[in-house]
């Protein structure tokens, strides 16, 4: 039974690559130090910032909301914090998770904004998936979900006057995305995988990842220790269909046989992104909806057009 390397109490976590065991108290300190370092090093939050936190209701985003609100009390930087939840319209999934977000934000005393696909696009994700199937389009549900969610997060964060948008992407997410983009030879996406992403486009809300250097196992522990781990298992029913799901499994197998592999992959990513420091992405304006985009027509409008869901009156001239 491992004991804490610092105080020799019973350990709850072992950092295999670093040969360190930590008790509950020292794990939470380690977690806090690591996240604060990411925030400081990359200047994620400035003074008097209106931080909008994207909260899906899963353990990671609930942990981010909980962590940031607590940090805000200690840091006294004049932050305002709003939780933002996107309701994609996935039956039997979102109903539970939205309830969780409502409970946590009210117990933490932060504002909550819910924005739905239905309200902004006219269709729920379930409806989009059905139409996509009927039209024989080649996209997985996660493509629509990811594109539409990112689009709405930026747009709604801006509409509620947020100055920065924080997402709960952790080291595992970042490394998975890195690998997927290597497989697809998509370097413009790799350059966006930084702890803080800005654009010269004035409609783009700066996007930050405070958990960039934290393993998913560590956010899980943080969630359990703070009573944030969801009591019923509600994963997105579409998730196991995604390629990401397979990449995640492979990475976890590899990490087991070679502890520290995820960290070294992250270092590889940092080296790759430092080669080109200015993100030239999202600098254009979508000719359809007027939102920031990396192409003439943004990805969300392109998908909607292929689905036949874009109405001509929406086209800005």
């Amino acid at each position, binding site marked *: *039974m*491992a004991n804490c390397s610092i105080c020799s109490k*019973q*350990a*709850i*976590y*072992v950092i295999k690559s670093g040969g360190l*065991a930590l008790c*509950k108290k020292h794990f939470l300190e380690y977690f806090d130090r690591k996240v604060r370092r990411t925030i400081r090093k990359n200047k994620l939050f400035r003074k008097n910032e209106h931080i909008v936190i994207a909260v*899906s*209701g*899963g*353990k990671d985003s609930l942990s981010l909301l909980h962590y940031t609100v607590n940090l805000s009390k200690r840091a006294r930087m004049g932050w305002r914090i709003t939780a933002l939840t996107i309701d994609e319209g996935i039956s039997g*999934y979102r109903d539970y*998770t939205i309830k969780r977000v409502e409970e946590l934000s009210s117990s933490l005393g932060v504002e909550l904004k819910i924005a739905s696909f239905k309200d902004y696009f006219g269709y729920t994700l379930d409806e989009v998936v059905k139409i996509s199937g009927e039209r024989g389009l080649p996209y997985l549900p996660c493509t629509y979900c990811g594109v539409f969610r990112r689009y709405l997060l930026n747009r709604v964060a801006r509409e509620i006057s947020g100055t920065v948008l924080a997402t709960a992407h952790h080291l595992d997410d970042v490394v998975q995305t890195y690998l997927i983009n290597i497989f697809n030879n998509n370097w413009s996406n790799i350059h966006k995988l930084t702890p803080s992403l800005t654009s010269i486009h004035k409609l783009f809300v700066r996007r930050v990842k405070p958990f960039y250097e934290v393993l*998913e*196992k560590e956010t*899980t*522990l943080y969630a*359990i*220790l703070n009573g944030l*781990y*969801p009591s*019923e*298992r*509600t*994963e*997105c029913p*579409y*998730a*196991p269909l995604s390629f990401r*799901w397979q990449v*995640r*499994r492979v990475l*976890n*197998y590899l*990490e*087991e046989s070679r502890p520290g592999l995820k960290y070294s992959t992250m270092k590889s990513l940092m080296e790759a992104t430092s080669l080109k420091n200015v993100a030239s992405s999202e600098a254009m304006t979508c000719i359809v909806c007027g939102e920031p985009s990396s192409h003439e027509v943004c990805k969300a409008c392109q998908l909607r057009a292929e689905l036949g869901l874009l109405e001509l009156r929406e086209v800005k001239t």
Partner: protein
Amino acid sequence: MAEETSGIKVKVREFGSGVKEVSLKNRVSVGELVKSLGYIIEEYVVAVSGTIVTEDYLINDGDEVVLYPVVSGG
């Protein structure tokens, strides 16, 4: 690591799923138990009788093991 005993039984509950009884010939570690169920230890946080343990924890007869999946969609 395992010592000979007459065999032990543990209850294993995967969070959000059902409980299963697992019989073991010997005392094994949490890491070995998770592996024997066909899982990857990287993908679970494990608690025994309400306390989170590390993977070298040796299972006792009658222990209640809870597996918290690290991997979840969303």
